[in-house]
């Protein structure tokens, strides 16, 4: 393992050296205090050569959410805390969806004291109540499972005693080599460091902390973690950069809880506090925002695409649009309307990891239909009941005959447009559209081969 770490370090040095030789702006090493000094040294070396950008989005005091905080003394706070505890207790006695007082921890009360209204508190109590109920039910099921496991182990032990032959199977004698998770992780990290040298770049703009509430910040942290993981697991990963990261903010703190080694120098994750305009030249940047008018037509590997790392369930202002306009960047949105029929489920918002997956597939295949397979089906297709039933019988028959039909179902609407990558060649495809149709023969009507 140590030699791997040494390899990461040398790779990192090579990387820095390589970029410096390329005379591009110095890409900040993953942020630590030591690296900061190095970067500062590096920057000062390059200063006469590079232009100093002022970050218009420096993380100053957030204005959006601090308007309602009034100062109160410690004893007022204690008094309020006691009253709120009484409120929770009485609501629990009434049988409402509030957990018992023993369930609440200090950080729960700290959060409850910040909530502005009674209805907000009620919703939070309901959330904690659900957690309590889930825990209780988990405990019950665990006891049940423990009993079953005991019984099963006793049977197995008895059987093993009576058996004199060699036991074959996973965990005993088998021909399969066990590959551990850490090995896979190291291999994927290696691929990521290679990506940092050669792959196209993608920026995740983390400057929206002040516009999200607590729940949204934790959701955003989880989505960032998932996007990093899915990028790393892909065959051809991007070089991801997390820019404008406020490391004290809730989103980044959440991300650090998911990935504790995030800021280590050997970990292949680029976290910058600087803005992406300071890292990359503006003419290469394209901001992906849903509020603009131009669709992204084709993927350009020379462009650096920016995705705003924001969960916007509460706030629906066009913040990313405003930011792109202010910085004078090019803007684009995904051509969702052109390629998908949008159903009624939960609107056109996509999570960050779905976006990264879409861009990864787009980079790999250049085909929007495959890329947009990552949009959840519940949002897209509006299946009627009969169509669903038809599909189910189809699946059932296919399972009986042990036949793979996914490729047929995927493109059942537009067979002519399926690429060789995704569909196997059908027999006599060149004769498609040329079948004899008695009804239309010599009628003057044109047989349409074009599907909508």
């Amino acid at each position, binding site marked *: 393992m140590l030699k791997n770490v040494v390899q990461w370090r040398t790779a990192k040095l090579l990387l820095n050296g390589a970029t410096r030789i390329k005379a591009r702006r110095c890409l900040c090493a993953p942020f630590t205090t030591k690296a900061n000094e190095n970067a500062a040294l590096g920057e000062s070396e390059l200063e006469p050569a590079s232009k100093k950008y002022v970050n218009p989005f420096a993380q100053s005091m957030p204005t959006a959410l601090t308007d309602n905080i009034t100062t109160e003394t410690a004893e007022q706070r204690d008094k309020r805390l006691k009253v709120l505890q009484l*409120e929770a207790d009485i609501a629990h*006695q009434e049988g409402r969806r509030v957990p018992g007082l023993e369930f609440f921890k200090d950080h729960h009360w700290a959060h409850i004291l910040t909530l502005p209204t009674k209805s907000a508190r009620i919703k939070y109590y309901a959330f904690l109540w659900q957690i309590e109920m889930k825990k209780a039910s988990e405990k019950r099921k665990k006891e049940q499972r423990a009993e079953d496991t005991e019984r099963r182990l006793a049977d197995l032990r008895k059987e093993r005693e009576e058996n004199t032959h060699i036991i074959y199977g996973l965990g005993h004698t088998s021909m399969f080599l066990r590959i551990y998770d850490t090995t896979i992780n190291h291999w994927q990290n290696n691929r990521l460091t290679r990506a940092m040298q050669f792959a196209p770049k993608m920026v995740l703009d983390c400057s929206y902390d002040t516009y999200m509430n607590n729940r949204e910040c934790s959701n955003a942290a989880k989505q960032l973690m998932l996007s990093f993981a899915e990028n790393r697991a892909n065959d051809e990963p991007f070089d991801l950069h997390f820019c404008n990261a406020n490391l004290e903010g809730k989103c980044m703190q959440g991300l650090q809880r998911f990935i504790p080694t995030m800021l280590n120098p050997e970990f292949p994750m680029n976290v910058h506090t600087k803005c992406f305009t300071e890292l990359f030249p503006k003419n290469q940047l394209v901001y992906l925002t849903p509020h603009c008018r131009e669709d992204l037509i084709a993927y350009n590997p020379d462009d650096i695409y920016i995705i705003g790392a924001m969960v916007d369930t509460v706030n629906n202002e066009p913040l990313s649009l405003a930011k792109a306009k202010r910085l004078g960047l090019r803007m684009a949105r995904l051509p969702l309307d052109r390629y998908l029929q949008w159903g009624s489920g939960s609107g056109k918002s996509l999570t960050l990891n779905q976006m990264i997956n879409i861009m990864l597939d787009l980079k790999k295949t250049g085909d929007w239909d495959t890329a947009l397979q990552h949009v959840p089906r519940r949002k897209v297709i509006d299946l009627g009941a009969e169509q669903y039933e038809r599909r189910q019988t189809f699946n059932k028959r296919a399972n009986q005959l042990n036949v793979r039909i996914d490729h047929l179902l995927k493109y059942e609407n537009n067979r002519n447009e399926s690429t060789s990558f995704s569909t196997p060649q059908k027999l006599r495809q060149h004769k498609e559209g040329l079948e004899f149709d008695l009804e239309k023969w010599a009628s003057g009507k044109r047989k349409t081969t074009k599907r909508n």
Partner: protein
Amino acid sequence: MYNLRLLRQLRYSLVLQNSGTALAHLPPCRLLAGQHKRRPQLGAIPSDQLDRLKSEYFEQQCALSNEDWQHVRSTLTESYRHVNGTNVDAIILGLCSRAEQLPVAKSYVKHLQTQGIKPNAATLGRLLRVYNAAYHTRELSEAEQSEIVEICDTLQSAHDVLDASSCENLILGLVATTQHWNRALPLLDMMRLTSTPSVSAYSALIAKAFSADQLELGWRLLEEMIEARKLPKCEIFLSLLAQSAKDERTLGAQLERLFCFLELHDILISELVVQQLLALAQRLPQRLQVTTTRLELFGKCSTCQQNLQHVAISDAQFAELRESFLQKVLIRNDVFQKTTPQELQRFKQYVEKTAPYDCVIDGLNVAYSTGNKKPPAQLAKLLATVVRYFKERRKRVLVLGRQHMSNWSKPAMQYIQSNASVFLTNNLTHDDPFLLYATLRSGQDTDFFSRDLMRAHAHLLGTELKAIFRRWQQEHQYSLVTQTQTGQIIVKEPIRYRLSAHKVGNVWHVPYCEAYTANPPDSFEVPEKWLCITIAP
């Protein structure tokens, strides 16, 4: 495996549909993945078994025996996972919450005492609620009232500061007594620590204040309630009317005060209150004449044949609206969200140059009035028709639109350009605030033409300016109803008379609605039912 499971459910659902009866041994039918079913709310008691329990035990209005109560208690705790020893008492008392079920509630509390179980705070609170419900139908006896006071004493001594729901229960309980309701006032202040006091707490207290002849207190609390944006319930007005009816001399003044209150806060009274008013007028015909009426054309009352007052806002209010509009609605925190600084500057300069107008037209809203997918030639023609409508009446208009409109059909656009001022914004800009800004800047006489209800912009202005904005909007908004086959357009002119309670000459005109709703949405309809009221001096 996944498909087998789905197939099994498919088969079961088909069988269910065919047989039409619920087969008991089937697993609960999970619906197909593509459809969405709302699962029953976790924690709520399933209603079918609850109904059975209710009909068996709680519908009777007499006391139940100890064994019956034991049985009810054990059924509830065993059958439902979320009902346990702590909350079963409050749940049972919640089930007998109607006025007639007071004996049932009392017998349960007695049962608890015989068993030696001390009722907890929630149970006592629910008991107070039952007392309050009973109080509305009959006077409570001395013993009951003293019990209420006792409960209040125990609760208040146990905790020095009570939470909002306990305070509300205590207020409702104290209001049911005759002499001790004054103790409810500091409870209202205690409620404010944790939340705004609820509508029922306020309503109960105000109604009691009115019926105990403490009118000033009642009015003060009413003002507070309106400030907290809670709508007063009918019982307040009913008790006020009942109290005013007792004294004939001050009746007129009281009614005047009530109607001024309704006018100031744009409140609609409900049918119940109207019935009471009519009954009052019948009893005292020489003091008060009340008739239900309808509005004819141009706001003429069908009873007294007078025209309602004009809806115009004062100059000061208009100035305030105009000054703060741009900052609050368009610029807000970040001007780039809706437009750019350069475009805003360009627009301001344009308006300075070409103001004042008679009407400002929202080009895209008008063009898309008859449908979204029309060809641009048709859109441009509709816009040109509207411009012609105003030209025929010799009005100066400004048309607002977006850059892509310059690609619409040439003849229509040229007609518009020659007969109106035109301003085209970027394709990404929100043009509604531009429309409203130009209209406001142009003066009190300018109207605007759009079908948009401007709800978002009204909300962004804040509560006081919102009311002013709505009145201004009502006075000045033209909208396109439709275009007939021949190409003629039907335009809806703004309603220029007031739609809230007000005085015309000496006669009050008061609109009313059918029933009380707690949070009425913004209504853009004219109230159909009005009262025409003359108060003798």
